[in-house]
Each structure stands twice: as C-alpha cells, then as structure tokens.
C-alpha cells in the first residue's frame, strides 16, 4: 500500500485541475461534491498507508526520479513515507475533509465559491506533497507552495484592504524565515552533496558536514538554526509570530485548516523531520526549546485580553505550537508530535465552532455576542469539548499530549521552561473559557444580531461533531491503555527505536496541571459567567500589564519602526541616488559634449585670416614637435 501513497496528494491535485477546467462560475454543488469526495478518498488512502506502515514498519523507502542534474549531483523528486509522514498525512487529510464539508455551508453564496475550493485543493495537494517529500529540496518547493496558498486564501476577500495587507504581511514575514531555510538547505547540499535526508543526517552525525570555511560541528549548528528559522516563520514562533493573528482576515474554514491544524504545524513537522540534525548539535535543540517556551507563554498572555474571537484562538494556536516546539526542543520528540496530532483536531474544532458562531451573528467581537448557547446547542457543546481539550482537562485529548510535554520539560531539567509552560497552561484555561462564557452564556449584548442567530445546516454541524469526538478520544492514542501506541509508532522511524526521549507518566504532575486548568476555568467563570469579579476593574488595577497584553507587547509597532521603516528609508535613498546623482552625472556628460560642440562651432568666425592663423598655429606646433622629435635643428 505504501508505494501508492502518492495517490493521497494526487487526488486533491486532480480536484484542483478539474475545478480550474470547470471555471469560476461552476455550480456550488458540483464543486463541493468533487472536492469533498476526492479529499475523502485521499483520507482513505492516508488511513490505508498509516495502517499498512503500522503492520510492517520497514517499508519506508524513498521512491524518486531525477529532476535536474547539477554538475555531478542530481536533484530528485518523488515521495517517501516514514511513520512521521504517515501520521501527518492522516491528520492533514482528515482535517481537510471535515473543513471541506464545513465550508460548503460557510462559503454558501460566495461569488468566488469555486475559486475558494480551487485554492483549498491546491493547498491540500501541496501540504501532502510537502509531508511525503523525500528530500529537503522538494520540501522547500512545497513549503513555498503552501505559503502561496495561505497567501491566496488570506487575501481571498481581496476587496478588503485589511485582507490584502494581511496576505502580504503573512507572505513576507514567513519569507523572512524561508530565506533561512533556503540558505540552510543550500549549505547542507554543498557540504553533504545531496538534499536527501538520509545522506544529510549521515554526514551530520558522522561529522562530515564541513566546508572549506567552516567546521562540521559549527556548520551543523548553523544549518540547523537556519532550518529552524524557516520553521519559526511558518509555525508563527516568536519573533516571527506577528503574521498569524492578522491571517484571521481569511475565511474561518481557512483559519481552521491552514492556520490551526496543518500548515502552521509544518514548522513543527520540519523540525521533527530533520531531528537528527538538531540532535547532532545540542545548541540548536536548546534554541528550539527556548523559542518554543517563550512563544507558548507570549501567545497565552496576549490571548488573555483580545476581543476578537478568532484572534484569541489564533494566539492560542501560537502558544500551542510553542508547546510543540518546546517539546521537540527538550528532546520529547514523540510528545511534540503527539500534541501536534491532538491539537490539529481540537483547534480545528474550535475554529469551526467559532466559524459557525460568526456565520450566525456575523461579528467577531466577543462583546457583541452572548447567550448564543440557547440558539446553537451543537455549536456550544462542541466548542465546550474543544475548550476542555485545549485547557487540558482530564481526560480530553489536550490533557494527555500537553501534560506529557510539560512532564518531559520538567524531567529533562528545564525548570524555567517548565514554569513558563505551567503559567501558559493556566492562562490557556482562562482565556478559552473566557471566550466560551462570553459567547454562549450570559445575556445577548446585541439583540439584532442575536435575533437572526441560528444553527448552521448539517454540513456545518456534522464536522463539528466528528471533531468533538476526536477532541475527546485523540488523547487515548498514546496512553497506557494502548500501551503508548503512537510514540512507539513514531519511534519506529529510527533503527535504534528511540528518537529523543520518553518519560514515564508523572501522576502528581498530572493532578497539578489539571488543578491548574480547573483554577483557570473557575476564574474565567467568576469573571464572565457569574460576574463576581469585574473584568474592567481588574484591567484598570493592573493597567500597564493589561495594556501590554492587549497591545500584543507592541511587537508590531517595534517591527514596523525597526525593519519596514529602515527598508523604506534605504529604498528612497537609493531612488534619490538613482535619479538625482547617477542620472544627473550622465546628463551632465552628454550636455558637456554638446556644449563642447557649440564652443567649437563658434571658432568658425567667418574671418578667413583667423582660419589661416589657427591653421598656422597647427603648423607651428607640428613643426616644433617634429623638430624636437628628430633632435635639434640642422
């Protein structure tokens, strides 16, 4: 079965081409039908591959053919299915199938409905191709392609200036990271002579990664960090996280699929895929861990105070991705991926639920909602499931994965990061339930909106329910109950059967974090459900901190001043130089020539004797020089 894995990405591509052929005005039913069916098929393929790989774990070869010859080397493309890849395939295809279904309702009556599905199909294709690519080169290609799709989908409502800006911002900010990745893979290619993972890892672990100008150890660290910058950009890690919140300008299903479940996870996937490289250089791992930890905390803190429902969830995504990075950084390879797995479901769920809310009341401002619980039962309950999972309450999915990461952080002795994680965990519980209460409980703030609020059609509710179920059970894939199946499955990638470290469950810690989560929920309840504590008063009492969180630590402003502004300055300087210095010099030269001509012209006085005198001077000079030349007169 594994050798047919290429079908998984191919099917969405077929869908894309087909829709492209159908044109922009194709009927919604047809478009949606084709897309959903094809993605579902590719989900089945992925499932088959996943299980097939489980049964005989050694079938993880690469299937490639030559793409371009570079001197003595050749660049190949093809596909390779490791256990990691198989897992990603499964997640991607599953979530996308559900999102495709959901979008049928959400994008209903949008004039570019077909285009929307074209982009989505293209995205799913690129994402899957990225996941199963056998070498860094192909990975980079589809890395950029998913970036493109994200750009297109964020800017889907192109007529909204915010959307246009957000799209541009997302592309450029991620591009900043991609340059790192770009240079990184070039350096790896030059030093190891190939883009293939195996060859690179070989060279890295055996210390043959040197170049004339740099030693192997340093190059490994350098390359690893460069590759990581790519992940930082894509996974919206600090300091390149600023694009993700703005990306919420796109349609909500897009946020669910691309900016929660799949594409933003690509960064985590990349680090996991190139894990041997990071392991070969301790420094790089530490960097990953710290960046992850900081991001987790930062995201959670900012999420506390946002008013826009999607932005809250976006920041929570950032923070959760931080958890994953931290997990990988502290060596908990399996746990990081485990969290990626669970997070994909409950975060997609949260977004879709939020989407269904927005669809109902078409506002995103939390403080214009409220009391929607009565009108939208299913949405409410599913959202609650998602929230509990995110908050990490036993036995929901998030609990298992997040807790194992925190556990690993503690065990591996990163105390500071451990506290970051715990604080973040508390905040997480608080902010998500803040959203929950503000949306579904209390009194409706805006009667008009409340009036026409209603539950969406089955196409929207069914995915919610399925995801809710997943959000509940996904955690059990890696518990004692199934003898830690997932991590074993993932570990099968390495011959030694161990990548990074795994740690035994730590019951005390589990209880502690659940308590922490419940505390967070309680606080949220007291502030927004049964208002015992007034949120406003609290905000005023710790004004500075509140504003800091509300204004996202002013990072956007700082970046604008620091980077954009300098760039524009240089640009205008160059422009000035170009127009008023270089071009002016050229112009002057031309002018000078012409003026010389004019000057000469006025030697033609019309006086024949002047002519003769000038001629005679010429003669004199000639004679003089000639005489001197032949040495003296007579």
């Amino acid at each position, binding site marked *: 079965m594994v050798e047919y894995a290429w079908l998984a990405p191919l099917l969405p591509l077929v869908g894309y081409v087909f829709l492209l052929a159908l044109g*922009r005005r194709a009927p919604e039913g047809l478009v949606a039908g084709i897309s959903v069916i094809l993605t579902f098929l590719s989900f089945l393929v992925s499932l088959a591959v996943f299980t097939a790989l489980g049964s005989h774990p050694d079938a993880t070869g690469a299937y490639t053919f*030559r*793409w*371009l*010859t*570079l*001197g*003595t080397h050749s660049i190949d493309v093809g596909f390779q299915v490791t256990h990691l890849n198989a897992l990603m395939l499964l997640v991607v295809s599953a979530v996308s199938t559900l999102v495709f279904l959901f979008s049928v309702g959400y994008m209903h009556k949008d004039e570019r409905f077909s285009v929307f599905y074209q982009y989505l199909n293209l995205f799913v294709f690129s994402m899957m191709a990225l996941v199963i690519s056998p070498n860094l080169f192909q990975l*980079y*290609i*589809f890395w*950029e*392609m998913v970036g*493109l799709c994200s750009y297109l989908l964020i*800017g889907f409502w*192109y*007529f909204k*200036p915010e*959307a*246009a*800006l957000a*799209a*541009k911002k997302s*592309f*450029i900010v991620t*591009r*900043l990271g*991609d*340059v790192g990745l*770009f*240079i990184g893979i*070039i*350096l790896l*290619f*030059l030093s190891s002579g190939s883009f293939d993972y195996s060859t690179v890892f070989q060279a890295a672990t055996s210390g043959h990664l040197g*170049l004339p*100008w740099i030693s192997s150890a340093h190059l490994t660290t350098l390359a690893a960090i460069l590759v990581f910058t790519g992940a930082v950009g894509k996974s919206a890690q600090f300091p390149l996280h600023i694009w993700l919140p703005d990306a919420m300008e796109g349609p909500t299903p897009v946020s669910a699929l691309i900016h929660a479940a799949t594409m933003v996870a690509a960064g985590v996937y990349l680090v996991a895929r190139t894990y041997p490289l990071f392991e070969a250089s301790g420094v790089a791992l530490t960097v990953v861990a710290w960046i992850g930890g900081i991001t987790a905390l930062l995201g959670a803190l900012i999420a506390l105070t946002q008013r826009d429902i999607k932005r809250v969830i976006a920041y929570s995504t950032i923070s959760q991705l931080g958890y994953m990075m931290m997990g990988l950084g502290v060596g908990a390879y399996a746990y990081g991926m485990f969290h990626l797995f669970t997070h994909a479901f409950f975060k997609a769920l949260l977004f879709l639920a939020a989407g269904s809310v927005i669809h109902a009341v078409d506002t995103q401002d939390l403080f214009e909602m409220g009391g929607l619980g009565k009108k939208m039962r299913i949405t409410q309950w599913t959202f609650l499931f998602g929230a509990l999972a995110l908050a990490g309450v036993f036995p929901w999915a998030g609990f298992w994965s997040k807790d194992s990461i925190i556990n690993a952080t503690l065990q591996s002795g990163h105390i500071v990061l451990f506290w970051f994680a715990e604080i973040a965990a508390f905040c997480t519980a608080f902010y998500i339930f803040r959203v929950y209460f503000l949306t579904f409980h209390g009194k409706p703030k805006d009667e008009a909106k409340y009036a026409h609020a209603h539950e969406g059609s089955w196409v929207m509710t069914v995915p919610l329910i399925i995801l809710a179920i997943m959000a509940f059970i996904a955690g059990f894939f890696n518990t004692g109950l199934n003898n830690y199946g997932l991590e074993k499955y993932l570990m099968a990638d390495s011959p030694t059967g161990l990548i990074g470290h795994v740690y035994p469950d730590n019951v005390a810690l589990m209880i502690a974090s659940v308590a922490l989560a419940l505390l967070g929920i309680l606080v949220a309840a007291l502030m927004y459900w049964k208002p015992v504590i007034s949120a406003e008063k609290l905000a005023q009492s710790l004004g500075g901190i509140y504003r800091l969180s509300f204004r996202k630590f002013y990072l956007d402003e700082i970046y604008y001043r620091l980077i954009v502004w300098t*760039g*524009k300055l*240089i*640009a*205008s300087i*160059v*422009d000035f130089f*170009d127009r008023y210095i*270089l*071009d002016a010099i*050229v112009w002057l030269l*031309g002018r000078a020539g012409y003026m010389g001509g004019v000057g000469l012209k006025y030697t033609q006085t019309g006086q024949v004797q002047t002519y003769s005198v000038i001629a005679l001077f010429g003669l004199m000079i000639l004679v003089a020089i000639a005489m001197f030349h032949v040495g003296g007169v007579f």
Partner: protein
Amino acid sequence: MGLAFWFTILPLIAALLILVLPKLSSGVYRTLALAGGILSLILVLVGWFAFDGAASSVQLAGRIPWFTLPGLWHGHNLAVGLSFGVDGLSLPLATMTAVIGVLSLLAVPRDRQRARENYFWLSLALTGLLGVFTSQDLFTFLVALELVLFAVFFLVYLYGDPGHKEAAVKFLIYRGFSTVAFMVALVGLAWAAAGGYATASANAGNAVFTFNIPALTATLHQAISQWLSPAAASALFLVLLLGVFIEEAFVPFHTWLPTTHEHADPSTNMLIGGVVTKTGAYVLLRFGVGMLPGEVRHWGVLLAVFGVINILYGAFAAWSSKDWRRLIAYSGISHMGLVLLGVAALNTAGLQGAMFMLISSGLLTALLFFLTGAMKDRTTTLTIRSLGGLSKSMPVLSGFLLVAALGSLGLPLTSGFISEIQAFIGGFATYPAISFVGALGVVLSAVYLLYAMERTTFGPTAEGFLKLADARPFEYVPAVVLTGLVLLVGIYPDVIGHLFGLSAQALLRIGG
C-alpha cells in the same frame, strides 16, 4: 545549409519584403512580419528535434562565405562568412528569442499608426537578436549587435509615451558605447589568438587570424597558455566587462534601462526586457567565461560583489519606484545581478543558474510587460498608487499578473525559483559571505512585488475601473504561452537543464 542560418535569416527576409512592397494596408505587413517570425519559430522548434542534446558542440551549423578582408594579419586574408549554428547555450536562448519576438509582434496594436516601420524594425531586431545568439563568426556577431542597436532605437524612437524620443537617444548612445567596447575586445581577442600582444619571450607558433568563434576559442586557450601577455588579457577582459555592464544595465551603468522601459511601447518593452537585456550576459558567458576563464576567476570577487550590489540596488530601487514599468526594469536589474553572481562563482551550478536566469528573467519580464501593457490599455495609467482592485473587473489579467509576479519573486515551480537556487548554490560554494548578503534579495523581491500587487489587484476597486473589460481572446495567446513556459521550466527544468548543464561543463572544461 544549417537550420540555424534559416531561422536567423527569415525575419530579415520578412523585413526586406515589408520594405520593398508598395504601400499596403497595415494588415499585410502584420501578416508578413508574423509569417517571418512564426516560420523561424517553427524552424527553431524543429531544431530541438534535430539537435543532439548529448553533445555540447555547435550544431545545425551552416556557413556561406561572404567576403574576404585582404591582407589582414601580415598578408593573410581573413575570410568572413555568414556562419550560424547553435550549441546547448544558444538553442534555448534562440528559442526564447523567437517566442518573445513573435509575441511582441502580436502585441503590436492593430490600429498602430505607421505599422509598416514598426513591423520592419521589429523583424530586423528579431533577426539581429537571433543572430547574436547563433552567430559563429565574430563579424556576423558584431553586425547582429549593431542591427539590434539601431532597430531597437527606432522602435523606441517611433512609438511610446511622451519622452520616448529622449529615451531612445539615451538608449542609442549607451548601447552604442557598449557595442564599441565589444568590438574592441572581440577583435582584440581574435588578434591575440593570431599571435598579437605576445610576451617578449613567447613564440606564436601556430597562430591563425580567424573570426570563427569555436576555432577562436580553441586557439585562444593556446594563446593564453603560450604567448598572450597577462596584462593584455586583463585589459581585453576589462574592456569586454565594461561592454557587458553597459549592455546589461548593471549598476552604475543602468540608467538607460528604466528610462527606456518607462517610455517605450509595450511590444517594444517585451523585446527589450525579454531579450535585448540578455545579450550582454550572453557575451559574458560566451566570450568572458568561454575565452578568458582565467580572467573571470581573477576578477571573480569583483564580479560577485557587483552582482550582489545589483541584486540589492535593483530591489530597493524597485521598491521605491512609482511606476510598474520602472519596477519591472529594476527587478530585471536585480535578476541580472544574480546572473553576475552565478558567473562569478564559476562552477556548474552557478553557470547553469545564470543560464536559467537568462531564460527565466526573459520570459517573466516579457510577460510582465505584456500584462502591464494590456492593463494600461484599459486603465491608461501604470502609476501604482492610482491603481487598485483590478481583480474585480479583470480577474484573468490579474491572475496572470500574480503568476508573473510570483514567478519573478522566485516561487518554486516557476522558472524564477530554479534559476535562483542554482545561482545561489553556485554562489555559496565559492563566495559564501557575499552570497549571504545577496540572499537578502530573496526577501526584498517579495516585498516590492507583493507591495505592487497589493496596490494593483487587491483592495477596493476605484469607480473608474469597475467597467473595464477583461482579457480579450487574442490577449490570451501571449499570456498563456509565456506563463506556460515559465511553469514548464519551473516544473520540469531538465528540458533545458541538460543542455545548459553540458554547456556549463564545456565552458568550465575550457576554463580548466
């Protein structure tokens, strides 16, 4: 008689017909010019099948003796022939030239005033450009260069926005000087191969005075190894380099390019941006790397530094340019900087990247100029600030524009990316530090292109633009063809990759 001869000469025949025919309706001239162009394009494509991709030698070659310059090189006679042929480097370039040539003929508006001259000069320029890439004889090569110079001058001079006449003169004088530099350097090289500029002790044993380029290449390497004085070699190379810098619009000799593009007619711009700005780099590859590899290595750092300067300068200038055409011009300059970096690297990847970049930049620039031209027909302006929301009224054109922009910012699966990464692989292999700086250009290109896109196709649509018509049927042809080629090269680069690879290795082998 070689195929190369015919597809080079066909547009010229068309041009002569246009010249001698009595006054007719412009349609006739259009048909003639197109016939010439398309026929030569067909022959080029036939050439792809006749061409043996496994050999890096000159093929499809043919030579008609033209005349003899008596008594040059101490009483010997220098035979000059109409000698054309293609190798792995020039075949793709010739193909690109033919394609863009035909498309720019198509892009000439049907209601053009004085269509006759337009088609005449355009066909002449086409022959010249094909000749530049296919000449196997120095004299024909120089003739072709001069033809391009004059033909394009008239194209810019006769058609365009206010200010195009001054731009034309600027173009003429600049490129005139570069042509002179080439003439000096190339004839100098021929002379050096004939035993000129010999060091005192050396004996130019088997020196012959020939203008035949392959023979010249061969003898030159003897010359360099045996008798040519290093000082003379450096001097010749520097003169050649000066020519390349002016011809290729490298900073600081670039100011003619934005001026010309800003004022010239779209069809002319397609030709200039697509092909005319590639001849210089071709000269650098064919005569610089091919004949004086030692010098290229010796001046490598200089080349690489200038390459990076061009990348960044072009990018920043593009960022701050107010007009689409200026922006495209500067992004072209930025691309060509990458070519310089690749050549300076002097390894397979670098050269191959440079060659790819010639094709890629050619196609993309032509596409961009075509699309912006089509937009200008409707919006009557290309000032970026005054545009906006064009996706609403012309989704198709905007879509193509987006593809073109993404291509030239080096998005994978477009030709831009494959050129970029190869050039950088080459660059990092030889000059890591310099290339690190150059890599900044990858971000900057995204910045300025997406900025322009955001201002053009995204955002709310201005009242005036709501009713504008989208692409007309005949406008699909150039857009689709060029986009198709960009994607083809991007998705399966080996179509030209194996040719370029062989040529690059051949050049390097010569370099030793």
